[in-house]
Structures are given as structure tokens and as C-alpha cells.
């Protein structure tokens, strides 16, 4: 009796979670004239993939997709590169002001990013980077760097210092010890942090919207916002675009999930 109740409750929660996804899929395969029917059609009478074709052919969705991939990948690479070095430094070295610096990084996360929008706009314009993907990479890196540094600092703390010492004894310099020994061991943490950085850059809207002004530079989130017209919304195309936009993060997660769940330092010390 009790397990049945639990399963029933889980089923309800699943329906609650999955219904929006079902609705997106069902809407994306409807023709434009049938996206809102009265009475409600739970499944389209004549399913079509026309909306999926339309977003690639009728709109520069490929360009949006490429821009998002470039911006998110670059943000991830740059931020993880710096965060790994900074996190390792905070974890292994004691220096004056270290705790103050870490607290300052946390403090930056407490400022709503929207308040920085106009300042970013000014800085980006001043450097001639308005309407460039570089501006977005710089902005997103500045958002994610404090948090990723904190995450990786915590992760490096959990890596035994004996590994560093073993690397030094074997002839590594501190930097090569970090690159050759510690970094591979920290891969699960770096992967989790990378996913965070990638998703933030992939999903972000308002900075991408304000700091770009041509469709050649739009990211997916900005491109999709343009599906909302003044007088009409192409709901089927909007849902198709949303579903396609969800594919890269899902694929990324599928390919990296094994790193997330793998042991931290299993077999590292013999």
C-alpha cells in the first residue's frame, strides 16, 4: 500500500515536470494554424516537422546556434582556465589577503547582474567591442569566474596534498605538477564547473540582447526572442527552436556525466 502511494506521488510529480516538455513537443509538430485549437487537441491531428525546417531555412537559426556555441565554449574555456589556476592558488598557497579576496569574490555574486548592464555597455562601447561575440565572452567570464573559482578551490582542497608533494619529488615544477598530476585528478570537478559555465553562457539573454544589435551576432536566446512579433507569435517555431536549443546542454551532460559521478582520487595514491 505504502509503495503504491509513493509511486503515485512520484507519477504526479513526473507529470508536473514533464507536461511542459510534452506541450512543447506537441506544439512544435503542429502547423501554425493549429497551435491553439478549441477544443483542445492533446496531440496534433496532422503532425508535421515543418516548424523544424522553417527555423533553419526561413530564419538564421544556424547562425544563432553557431554564435551560442562559440560564446559558450569560449566562456567555458577562458573561465575554467583562469578559475582552475586561481582555485589551485587559493587552495595550496597561503598569502596575505587570500581570505579577503575570496570573500570579495563572493560579494560580487551578491550584486544583481542587471545593475551592471549599463556599465558593461559603456565599457564595451569604449573598447569598440559593441556588437561582437568577444564582448559577450568577456561579460560572461566575469560573471562565472568568481563562482567557478570558489567551486574549484573547494575541489582542490579535497585533493590530497600528498599528490603535489609526490609530483615535486618526481621532478615536476609546481606548475607542471598542477598541469600533469592535479588537473587530471580534478577532472570531475572541472567538468561540473564547466557545465555550469557553459549553461550560463548558453542561456543568458539580457546582456546578449543589449550588447548586440545585428542578427549576425545574436545568440540563440536573443534569436528566439525575435520569434515574438509585434502582432503574432510563431508558437510552433518557437517551441521547435526551444527544443533544438536544449539539445547541446543535454548532449553535453550525457557525455560528461561519467566524470561527474566518477571517484575523485580513486587509485591516485598507491
Amino acid at each position, binding site marked *: 500500500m505504502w509503495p503504491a502511494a509513493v509511486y503515485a506521488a512520484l507519477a504526479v510529480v513526473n507529470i508536473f515536470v514533464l507536461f511542459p516538455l510534452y506541450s512543447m513537443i506537441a506544439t512544435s509538430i503542429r502547423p501554425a494554424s493549429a497551435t491553439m485549437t478549441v477544443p483542445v487537441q492533446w496531440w496534433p491531428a496532422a503532425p508535421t516537422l515543418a516548424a523544424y525546417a522553417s527555423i533553419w531555412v526561413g530564419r538564421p537559426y544556424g547562425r544563432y546556434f553557431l554564435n551560442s556555441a562559440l560564446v559558450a565554449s569560449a566562456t567555458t574555456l577562458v573561465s575554467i582556465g583562469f578559475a582552475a589556476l586561481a582555485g589551485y592558488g587559493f587552495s595550496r598557497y597561503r598569502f596575505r589577503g587570500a581570505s579577503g579576496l575570496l570573500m570579495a569574490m563572493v560579494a560580487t555574486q551578491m550584486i544583481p547582474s542587471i545593475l551592471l548592464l549599463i556599465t558593461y555597455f559603456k565599457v564595451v*562601447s569604449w573598447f569598440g567591442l559593441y556588437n561582437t561575440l568577444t564582448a559577450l565572452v568577456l561579460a560572461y567570464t566575469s560573471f562565472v569566474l568568481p563562482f567557478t573559482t570558489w567551486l574549484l578551490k573547494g575541489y582542490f582542497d579535497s585533493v590530497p596534498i600528498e599528490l603535489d608533494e609526490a609530483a615535486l619529488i618526481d621532478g615536476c615544477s609546481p606548475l607542471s605538477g598542477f598541469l600533469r598530476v592535479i588537473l587530471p585528478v580534478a577532472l570531475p570537478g572541472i567538468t561540473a564547473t564547466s557545465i555550469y559555465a557553459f549553461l550560463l553562457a548558453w542561456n543568458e539573454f539580457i546582456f546578449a540582447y543589449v550588447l548586440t544589435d545585428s542578427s549576425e551576432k545574436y545568440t540563440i536566446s536573443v534569436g528566439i526572442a525575435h520569434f515574438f512579433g509585434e502582432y503574432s507569435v510563431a508558437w510552433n517555431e518557437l517551441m521547435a527552436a526551444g527544443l533544438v536549443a536544449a539539445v547541446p546542454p543535454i548532449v553535453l551532460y550525457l557525455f560528461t556525466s561519467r566524470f561527474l559521478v566518477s571517484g575523485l582520487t580513486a587509485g591516485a595514491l598507491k
Partner: protein
Amino acid sequence: MTTWRQARPWMTWGGAALGVAALALTLAGPATAQAPVQLRFMSWYFGEDPAGPALKALFAEFEKRNPTIKVVAETVTSAERVPKFTAAMEAGRGPDIYMDTPPNAPNLIARGYCTNLEPLMKAEKEDIKARFTKGDLDSFTDEKGDHYFLPYSTGPMGLIYNAKAFQDAGLDPNQPPRTWEELLDYSKKLTKGDRYGIGLFGKGDNSSVWRLWYWWMSNGGSVLTPDGKRSAINSPEFIEAVDFWADLYRKHKVAPPSVPTNSFGENNQLLAQGVVAMVESGVWQFGVTEKINPAIKGQLRAAPMPTRKVKVAVGGGTDSLCITKSSQHVKEAWELLKFLSDEQSGVTVWKIHGKFPANVRAMQRPELKSDPLVVAFEPMIQVARTPFKSTKYVEITQALGVMQQEVLTGSKTTAASVKAASDRIDAILRD
């Protein structure tokens, strides 16, 4: 004999002078090449079809006549245009020209983003103001009555109805309802099964509240006192109008059950699918509905909204242009504004965009005057106006949206809901 020590200051200064001269020459290079003046034009039109192509066709013509000026289109989304414009202006990188509608104009003017057009208009031989209706023009003034925007296109809202649905219900499509009582009678006759007489906008958003203006204005009600400092909605005329409108859904059930969640997008679909026979909308409704359901082409017609006490129409889409305060090319921007709002450009607006030009003389041109849609809407254009102007427009609309939802769902009586909304508006205006 000059020693190295004696010569060094001279050499240093000489070198610096040469450097400055070289820099000056480098900087002067592009100027002497006379690069065209670039006018950055920010509008949501560029992401819309056919609004964007119409505007770009006009730019091409303008650039042909003015080879030293180039117009650069900057696209914003319709929904998010104000945040982007505001950020750009605050960052000192605003466009030269910006397009917006009456609800946002008072705030943008009060923030000092737009250039006062009065001196520019006074310097012209032509009476520029005579190009537009008073209703359109006066939607974009400051407290002193100075104008900051030139209207580009316009579109009062009327009754859009499905002639075939009328015929099916035994009604004459050439005799649309002219009074509120007739509207109710027609709606009852058009309601059958899953088909409803009228599609109401009850979502409580801007589009829904905007359509409710008509009912109040037509019944002699208003939102603010003439000085704009207090709410005027707690009046018998206002409450009667809200009750009549809400009863179409609550009591007579001649509108779909989904009215409290319906706005523009939903009613587009309902009209296109033939679920509702009438909606309150503008000339743009035709293109939108036919895009969803091409088979409906030729079935839709337009008429003035049925009148109660006051013959009036709500200005629905007066898209207008301002020269921003950050523009370094006011003279060129003014030339473009004059061009876009002149008679010939108005014909292009109608032909490509399918929206009415704001220029009243263009509306009298033979190409437009004979069009059945122009014939239907022309009387509305003459009496169209914006219900009220306030820098607190958004907050006031939100208060009225809450009232709209309360009335439709029956969570409060109409009188109690209107009283609460009136108090909220007074509080908003006091802040």
C-alpha cells in the same frame, strides 16, 4: 657648437610635434574622404515582415535623394525595446532615431531621451503638424505641449468581424452592429456550440487593458482627471461600461470560456479558426489572421466599434519617431523624419506595410482612398485618441489589469474592484 645636451630638448619637442602632426594627418584622413553621415535607427520593425521591408524601402529612397546620409537599422524586439533603448541612452550610445508608441512616450520624454522638435518644426516653411491628426500628434507631448515625436504609421481600433459567420447566423454582413445593444444581440445570434459571438481580451496585460479603454471612453468615462493628478475611474459611467463588457462573458456567455486568459495571440487564433466572429482590433488584424489561416482571406471586414454615448476610437498603433538626445546628426535625422512622414512615403507605408500612414494627406490619395479598408477605418482615424498620458502608464495599466481579472473571475463586485483600482491609481500618482 651645439652639444648633445643642448640639442636634446629641441629634438624631443621637435619629435613630439612631428608625432602630433602625423597623428592629426592620420585622423584627418577619413574626414577628407567625406564618409557619409550614419544615422542609427532603432526599431522593432526590422524584425517584422512586412513592416521592416517597408521601412527599408523608404530608407533606400531617402539615401538615393541624400547620398551623404546612410541609415543603419538596429533591431530590437517589440516587447523588450524600452530596456535596450534605455540602456543604450544611459551608456551614451543611443541611436539617432528611435521608434515607440504613445504608452511609453511620456516616460521617455520625461527622462530627457528625446529632442524637442518644436524649434525644428518652427524653422520649416511647411506646417509639419498639419500632416497629422491632433489625436496622433498630441500623444507625444510633454506637460507644456511641446512635441517630441513625429507619427509614422497609425491604426485606430475598430470591430473586425467574420462576414461568413454573420451570414451563417442570418445576419447581414453589410450591417454590422452600431450600438452596444446591437452588439449584444449580434453576439447572442452568433454564439452556437463551440462558436462564440465575440472574442474579448481579458488577460489583464497591456493589450487587454488597451482594448478596454474604448468601452469606458465610449460611455463617457475616463481614467484620469483632466489635470492628470487623480484617478477618475470610480464613476457610474466607468463602472457601467466595465459591467457591460464583463457581462458579455459572465452573464450572456457570448465570449469563450477562456476570456480571462485571452489576449492578442489567443484571439488571433480564435478568430482565424472561426471560434469567435468578432474582435476589437486594428487593420493589422487582417494580415495576422490570414497568415494563420489563409482560407479566411476575404471573409474579414472592419467597422467602427458600436457607439454608446461618445463617438470615439482608441488609437491602437501610432508608431512614432523621435530624434534622441545622443544624436550628433540632428539636422540629418530631422530630414529623415520629415521624409518618412511625408505624403508619398505614406503611400509606400500602405502599399508595402499594409498599415495606415500617419500622414492625413496620404490617406486622401486615390491609391488609398478607394480601398475598402481605408473606407472602413477612415471615420475612426478622425476620432481616434490615446486614452491618457502619464509617466506612470505602466503602473496604472497594471492596476487596471488586476481590476479586469477580478471583475471577470468574480472575485470582487465590479464596484468594489473599480474602487480598489482607483485607490491604487491614486497611490501610484502620489508616489
